[in-house]
């Protein structure tokens, strides 16, 4: 065969393999409202940047008629492309080929691109759309999953890992996304669960649809497995691009800086922040008063909304925000919000993203359900994550900083580098009313006019403790600042800590209260 014939032959082979499961299977995929694996990659990445590898990989399974089955690409597309001009590694399971089922060759393509990502120091994006383990391959399919999980764990904290759930992702398969840093879901497309509706019906007699059990909304609002929810695949890919603009390529790099932009003039702290400690407000509006261009990316916005976690930029550099949200459950810490905050703090610390904590919380959520769900164990994760973090840690106490909540929200005592407090800050063991009711129980009970006495004692306690100056006198607060000065103080503190290094005792690893 002449070279020209060989080249033509290559093109024809490539074109055949690139059609995946063929026209019929593709039509079925589209009918389900889903995009094909290659279309997804093309839309997500920079135009013309994607190069596919391992297109001709074949499985070696001979059982159950598999020897007669040709599976193009073995049901997964892998390769390297770019986002915003920077290289990233990607794989997308191809549901049109044997339902995107995972066999050993399929898994080895994934682990190969994962190994690449780790060596090249670039993010890994995995698009999941698979019926699960290729049963004909038996234990080899399970081996495949295990090898992926092992690499997810190895890469954790070294390169950012992003999972996109664009189809079923069930059984053992769910644990790869669960080990990664950010999970994206799309309405009506994503389905994630360990055991499906059929098994639940058989074992428990409970009838539940796939959507109700593990659909996009459930993952974004109820379980906290997902970080970003989108109505369409298109919106999802735009969200990924936006997230990626905030994060560094690996743990030795900083995120690409942006030009500094002042916050939008329409955001003023005086307009969004009520002084009275029991009044709600949306803390995300306070963040928008502080960050460049008022541009804030809310991470896990719909789950445990009593705490806000997300990214913004200060002077062009990415920072991570953790903020109590008085709008929801008065901004308390509880089981879920503790988990959410702790995970986010650890991501920021692993990738050298400075942390800014905005504090306004009445304490922990009371209730037998919380205690029995392990609020002690979960709450401890926040203490652990903040104490362990060595990135610049800046704290702004806006209003309430009561009790254990005060300590937990990146207090000086957990190693905050800068602690600022607004004049409205109340740093105390509890609110004035609760404190007066305990300390002056007898005086109030024995008074001729108990209500007047209670008010007197509340005022006394407020005067004495419900302010930032006791903590400032002890040096626990570095500066009491007016809300309008906050951005300036934060910019100054970030600049001052740009060369920060902090050593921890040498150890193999700590033992966080998982």
């Amino acid at each position, binding site marked *: 065969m002449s070279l020209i014939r060989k080249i033509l032959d290559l093109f024809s082979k490539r074109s055949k393999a690139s059609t995946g499961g063929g026209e019929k299977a593709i039509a079925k995929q589209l009918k389900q409202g889903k995009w094909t694996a290659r279309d997804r990659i093309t839309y997500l990445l920079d135009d013309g940047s994607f190069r596919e590898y391992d297109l001709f990989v074949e499985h070696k399974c001979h059982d159950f008629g598999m020897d007669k089955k040709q599976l193009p690409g073995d049901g997964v597309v892998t390769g390297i492309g770019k986002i915003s001009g920077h290289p990233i590694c990607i794989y997308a399971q191809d549901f049109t080929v044997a339902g995107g089922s995972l066999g050993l060759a399929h898994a080895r393509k994934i682990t190969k691109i994962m190994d690449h990502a780790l060596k090249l120091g670039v993010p890994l994006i995995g698009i999941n759309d698979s019926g699960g383990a290729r049963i004909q391959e038996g234990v080899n399919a399970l081996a495949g999953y295990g090898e992926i999980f092992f690499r997810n764990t190895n890469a954790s904290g070294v390169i950012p890992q992003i999972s996109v759930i664009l189809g079923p992702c069930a059984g053992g398969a769910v644990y790869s996304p669960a080990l990664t840093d950010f999970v994206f879901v799309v309405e009506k497309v994503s389905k994630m669960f360990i055991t499906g509706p059929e098994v639940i019906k058989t074992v428990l007699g409970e009838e539940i649809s796939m959507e109700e059990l593990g659909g996009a909304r459930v993952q974004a609002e109820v379980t906290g497995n997902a970080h970003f929810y989108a109505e369409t695949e298109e919106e999802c890919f735009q969200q990924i691009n936006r997230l990626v603009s905030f994060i560094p390529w690996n743990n030795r790099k900083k995120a690409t800086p942006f030009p500094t932009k002042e916050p939008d003039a329409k955001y003023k702290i005086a307009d969004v922040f009520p002084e009275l400690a029991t009044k709600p407000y949306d803390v995300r509006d306070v963040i928008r008063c502080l960050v460049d261009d008022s541009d804030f990316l809310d991470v896990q916005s719909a789950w445990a909304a009593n705490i806000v976690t997300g990214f913004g930029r200060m002077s062009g550099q990415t920072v991570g925000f953790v903020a109590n949200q008085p709008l929801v459950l008065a901004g*308390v810490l509880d089981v879920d919000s503790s988990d959410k905050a702790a995970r986010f703090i650890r991501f920021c610390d692993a990738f050298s993203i400075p942390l800014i904590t905005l504090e306004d919380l*009445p304490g922990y959520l009371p209730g037998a359900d919380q205690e029995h769900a392990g609020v002690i164990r979960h709450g401890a994760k926040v203490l652990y994550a903040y104490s362990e973090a060595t990135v610049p840690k800046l704290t702004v106490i806006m209003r309430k900083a009561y009790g254990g909540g005060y300590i937990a929200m990146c207090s000086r005592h957990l190693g905050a580098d800068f602690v600022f407090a607004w004049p409205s800050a109340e740093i105390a063991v509890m609110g004035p009313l609760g404190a007066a*009711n305990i300390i002056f129980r007898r005086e109030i009970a024995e008074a001729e006019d108990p209500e007047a006495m209670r008010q007197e004692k509340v005022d006394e306690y407020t005067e004495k403790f419900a302010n930032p100056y006791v903590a400032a006198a002890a040096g626990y607060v570095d500066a009491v600042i007016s809300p309008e000065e906050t951005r300036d103080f934060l910019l100054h503190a970030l600049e001052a800590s740009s060369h920060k290094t902090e050593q921890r005792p040498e150890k193999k690893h700590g033992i966080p209260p998982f």
Partner: protein
Amino acid sequence: MSDKTKSHKLIIDDEVYETRLTEKYKKRKPWVPVNPRRILAVIPGVIIEVSAKEGRSVKRGDSLLVVEAMKMKNDIFAPLDAKIGKVHVQVGDITKKSQLLIELV
């Protein structure tokens, strides 16, 4: 205002906060003390044996019935010395989680 954005009151340390509640918070189950004389199903399953007889005395640890669940046969034992009050299930019944099986007196 939709229910999702409606302002509720949340009391923490006597202080009343205006705020929104989460679905999870609204759906939480209030704590009820465990009554050892009410034997409830801990797992859904099928009753395959009932040895408890109404009116008969049992000692702590005596088997009351056997529930098959998740392919395992589980003996349900009396948690204390008592007399059998009412038996609410019979062999072949499919029980739900937390369903009342037997009352002791």
